[in-house]
């Protein structure tokens, strides 16, 4: 037995060392940093400059607001679309299934830098293909990077394009785990297809959909590369500045590590809080 315990520690130790050094310790250290004023050497204890500022900082409030807007609009739209796609991709009637899957799953492998560059070009106000198509059918052109609303819409579209397939894969796997006889019985009882979807499929998928929601919430809370690269650092004028980008700016362009750590902890607390609310909403009624 003692031999086996030693073996267990032997297997575990290499990973644990890395885990402790690059995950656990930074989490603790970050908490400590969040109480320090770090703008002028030497760093000193002054939570008023970090947590105190957080409460009253309009720029933080703006980033929080933008993140919540994305959260409230983008996450439900994307999850609904992902569910729809999963159901439709699972349909026996679908032709060219391979190409269809490829169309929606391929964006998952496209890196942020690559797709950001493509979106920048496609949505260029003067020469972008999207505006050419829009004006081609007689609609007014949209200044995608200059109008705050349009820029926000652009970020939401981009993130949805990239991640809907990812969620559809997860939901599809849940869908395929539902035994077929459930539907066969329902069909025999003359339950219509839409009713089957709402009264059988959705309740069975609920845990998986909630899982997707939690993943998306965490993802949105740290959304960074898209507003950094597509809307040029949260433009226009901070209209698409997310919490992730705000943290980057505080941490690495004005170099305020203490304040950035307080922001990081707030992001984490919000992510956990929203996830818990989701789980609470989705708890099994007993």
């Amino acid at each position, binding site marked *: 037995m003692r031999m086996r315990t030693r073996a267990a520690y032997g297997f575990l130790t290499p990973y644990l060392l890395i885990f402790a050094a690059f995950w656990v310790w930074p989490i603790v250290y970050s908490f400590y940093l969040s109480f320090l004023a770090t703008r002028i*050497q030497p760093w000193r204890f002054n939570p008023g400059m970090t947590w105190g*500022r957080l409460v*009253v*900082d309009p*720029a933080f409030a703006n980033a929080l607001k933008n993140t919540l807007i994305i959260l409230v609009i983008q996450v439900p739209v994307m999850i609904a679309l992902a569910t729809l796609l999963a159901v439709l991709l699972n349909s026996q009637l679908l032709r060219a299934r391979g190409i269809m899957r490829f169309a929606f799953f391929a964006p998952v492998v496209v890196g942020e830098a690559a797709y950001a560059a493509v979106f920048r070009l496609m949505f260029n106000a003067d020469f972008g293909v999207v505006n050419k198509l829009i004006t081609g059918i007689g609609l007014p052109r949209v200044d995608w*990077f200059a109008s705050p609303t349009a820029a926000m819409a652009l970020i939401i579209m981009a993130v949805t394009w990239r991640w809907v397939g990812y969620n559809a894969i997860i939901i599809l796997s849940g869908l395929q785990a539902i035994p077929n006889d459930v539907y066969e019985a329902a069909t025999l009882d003359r339950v219509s297809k839409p009713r089957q979807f709402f009264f059988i499929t959705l309740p069975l998928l609920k845990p998986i959909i909630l899982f997707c929601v939690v993943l998306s919430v965490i993802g949105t809370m740290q959304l960074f590369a898209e507003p950094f690269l597509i809307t*040029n650092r949260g433009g*226009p004028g901070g209209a698409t*500045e997310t919490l992730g980008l705000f943290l980057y700016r505080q941490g690495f362009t004005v*170099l305020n590590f203490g304040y950035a750590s307080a922001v990081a902890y707030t992001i984490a607390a919000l992510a956990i809080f929203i996830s818990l609310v989701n789980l609470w909403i989705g708890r099994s009624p007993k």
Partner: protein
Amino acid sequence: MRTTLGGAALALVLTAGAAPAFAQSGEITVWSWNVAASALEATVEGFNAEHPDVKVTVQDLGNDQVFDRTLAGCAAGGGGLPDVLSIENHEAEIFWAQFPDCFTNLKELGYTEEIASGFPEFKRVELEVGDAAYAMPWDSGPVVMFYRRDFYEKAGVKPEDIKTWDDFTEAGKKIAEANPGVVMTRADFNGDAEWFRMIANEQGCGYFSNDASSITINQPACVAALDAVKKMYDAGIITAADWNEKIQANTAGTAASQMYGGWYEGTIRNNSPDLAGKWGIYRMPSVTADGPRAANLGGSSLAIPTVSKNKKAAWAFVNYTLGTNEGQVTMLREFGLVPSLLSALDDPYMQEPQPYWGGQKVWVDILETLDEIEPSRGTPFFGDADGIMIAVQTRYLTGEFASAQEALDDAANQIALVTGLPIAE
């Protein structure tokens, strides 16, 4: 060690401009951006004539990236930094405030008071702290209006008649009418506040007071500047475009004017060679008909990080490129960078008519504004203030504030919160 350094300094002073008394060798790497990088590259040939054994590599990383990476590098104790760094003057003070140990005091390498006094005082103030000089002034950015002669002519607009921003707006409407698809001008409303800064500086106002002790962004002159921007925006004569999109508009012929520092001369000339003869310049308009018509935008300096393994070669390069007329005039000729070095301004090249600009003596016109420019200090908090101003500008342009005064009061309060500085009375 001290004596050797002193000796080296002495040697440099004695031989400035002439062949060096001792040869430098090795490789140095320089970080810069856009035309500034190209300009530095253009001086390498002349530098190598004097120092054949130094191999200079200029890397163009883009303006934001150089700043971000330099900060990150200094935060990492200097790791990864090159031998020579380009630093924009108004962004410079954050470096000396946070990381004084990251940069070499150039005076230890031979940057004597005699050399330093060859630069105007307002270029030096942001680069020197006490006895230490962390960077050497490079270029300045006297603002002018660049314009398309053909578009203006077609609308019957004469640039000399444009004295105020209201004149500019009226002209813009005529030009758009006469040239379908052309917009009077562009401003980076998405990620910058350069038009506000230029007009504010013209009116004698900036984010901070020049002793860096208080916030002045909500002073009347700044309010007038933001007001002017908003009027032009509302009239539809300025549309949003970032640096790249402005260039695209220039080459595609959809912009009738661009306002920038004199260094934009090189950008237009190099990016749109086909448009030779079609561009010209005139002085920036003012708020009132007899108001000031000069401002500065941009202007940079070169610094040497302490981690550089070849500081002597780095200094030799910096001193050649920035400290000699030959270096400075090369950068002007090739890429339109306006020298800070006062003696370079007397170079005969400045008086020549420029074929690209339709024979206009653009440098005479650009340089004559130099004396009228009000200094404007960046302070260590420039990044904070600029970020806040960009956001406030967007909110104001989209109608969120009742007046420019209200918008700038809001900006001033935010800057006060972030920096702890008082708002000037």
